[in-house]
């Protein structure tokens, strides 16, 4: 828009340590896209605290979240809204060393799963096993907390874990570690969903729609640049984050850049089907305390005007 842009300062809370999921944000910051919108953005890393609550309560204006988190939050009346999908498809999946011969969910039987303690984890596996004709009860759960998967694999503590392909999958490649990888979207068991997403609060949208619009616009520009020029995106991230693994960032960025907006007209676009489908699935597995109205969980209007 050409209207005068009021200066505003906002806080964005990441979901985890900075990684290639966040490239567009650092690009937007360091290429001055936020400055263009007269926004002063401070990026906060979350440690162990909940992004959803911080954003919903207004401690941070924006946060990186996930469709599953937004859905669960909304079912508990936490007024969180997703305003952009950072990656169009779910790139997560189940990884195992090649020698374990885990090629499909059915193979999970009799194997050790390295759990990280997320609530619906068990139901996801149950669904997968049912869908592929296996028995969930034959999976042995091992809570591995913060242990490096590669270590857990090597020591035989676990056989398979749930990872993001763009980060740990690439890391395995770089280390020459041979993985079998079962991508969630390759199975027809669990509906595809957006992970991660850019989220803000209902209050923010109601009271400062302009700021939200400007922030989303600048961020979208950042991701578009990262899509077009993966290596500039990677360099920006490497420069912005102390001690980050530069080789991993470059490889990961090359893999991820084409996928940010894959199959979509525009970076960030979300569809009602995706939200509805995932919510239905959660309900069918008794994972949602209260059903939600998917229409309130996301808002495409800012991407439309970006």
């Amino acid at each position, binding site marked *: 828009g050409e209207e005068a842009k009021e200066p505003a300062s906002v806080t964005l809370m990441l979901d985890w340590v900075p990684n290639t999921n966040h490239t567009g944000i650092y690009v937007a910051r360091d290429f001055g896209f936020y400055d263009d919108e007269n926004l002063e953005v401070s990026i906060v890393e979350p440690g*162990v605290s*909940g992004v*959803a*609550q911080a954003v*919903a*309560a207004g401690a941070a204006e924006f946060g990186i979240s996930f469709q599953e988190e937004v859905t*669960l*939050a909304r079912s*508990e*009346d*936490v007024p969180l809204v997703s305003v952009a999908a950072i990656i169009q498809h779910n790139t997560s999946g189940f990884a195992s060393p090649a020698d374990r011969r885990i090629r499909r969910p059915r193979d999970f039987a009799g194997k050790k799963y390295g759990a990280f*303690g*997320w*609530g619906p984890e068990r139901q996801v596996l149950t669904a997968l096993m049912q869908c592929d004709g296996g028995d969930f009860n034959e999976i042995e*759960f*091992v*809570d*591995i*907390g*913060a*242990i*490096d998967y590669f*270590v857990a694999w090597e*020591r035989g*503590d676990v056989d398979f874990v749930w990872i993001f392909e763009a980060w740990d999958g690439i890391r395995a490649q770089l280390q020459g570690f041979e993985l079998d990888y079962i991508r969630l979207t390759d199975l027809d068991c669990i509906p595809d969903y957006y992970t991660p997403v850019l989220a803000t609060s209902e209050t923010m949208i109601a009271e400062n729609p302009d700021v939200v619009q400007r922030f989303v616009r600048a961020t979208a520009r950042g991701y578009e640049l990262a899509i077009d020029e993966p290596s500039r995106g990677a360099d920006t991230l490497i420069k912005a984050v102390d001690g980050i693994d530069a080789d991993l960032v470059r490889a990961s960025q090359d893999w991820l850049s084409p996928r940010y907006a894959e199959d979509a007209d525009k970076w960030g676009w979300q569809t009602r089907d995706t939200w509805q489908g995932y919510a239905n699935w959660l309900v069918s597995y008794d994972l949602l305390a209260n059903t939600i109205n998917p229409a309130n969980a996301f808002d495409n209007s800012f991407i439309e005007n970006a």
Partner: protein
Amino acid sequence: MRKLHHSLRDFGPAILLIAGLLALWEVVSRVVEMPDWLLPAPSDIGVSFGEAAPLLGPHVVATVTAAAAGYALALVSAVLLAAAIDRWGLARRAIYPLLVTSQTVPTFALAPLLAIWFGFGLLPKVLVVALVCFFPVVVATVGGLRAADKEMLDLVRGMGASDRQLFFKVRLPAAVPSVISGMKIAATYSVIGAVIAEWTGASQGLGLYLLRASNSFQTDQVFAVIAVIALLSIALFGCVELVGRTVAPWTAAKEETAR
């Protein structure tokens, strides 16, 4: 009867103060209509505590086991180490700084290594609790042992006491009030130490439950678990206080005649 009256006088004010604060919190959260997911009212917490209570049993057991075992381990080893530190100047100068260093290592950062070394069972949790509780007891005990009256030590040594006897007859009794102080501090840390240990990987325990509740935005459950943690810690603290009064009657007496 007198005992009862006594403990009412002892705990009455605390109970009143806490009740008052809870009431204030209840009223404020009703008035400003604070959303549940941010800060639930005490009454909501109470309700969800009632709901959760039947589920909590095994989690409480798991956490309390780790906390108690770790605490006991810490206590014994702390007093032994403090004795060694006090006994040999070399030990003090060599080990003390190491001990301090050990406290500065964030448990959370070590937890993955502990799990790798000791597995995912009870042991790494017990070790984390022991690590957390160990230090306050050592520092306080060393301080207390050092503060023993030099002339009394000389007297008893002059009576032909061995170093062992000197320790048990003079240094340790003189240090008892300090040891109790250290034990109190450690008592408060033991349960929360176990909870933190559980965050780094566990299949049962209050820490796990807390994490689950938090991840599914059940803030009222989160607070209910926190209340359980607090109650457990206070119970342990109370036990230490009681033990303190029993093993050091001469200090209790002093207090009673004071003002």
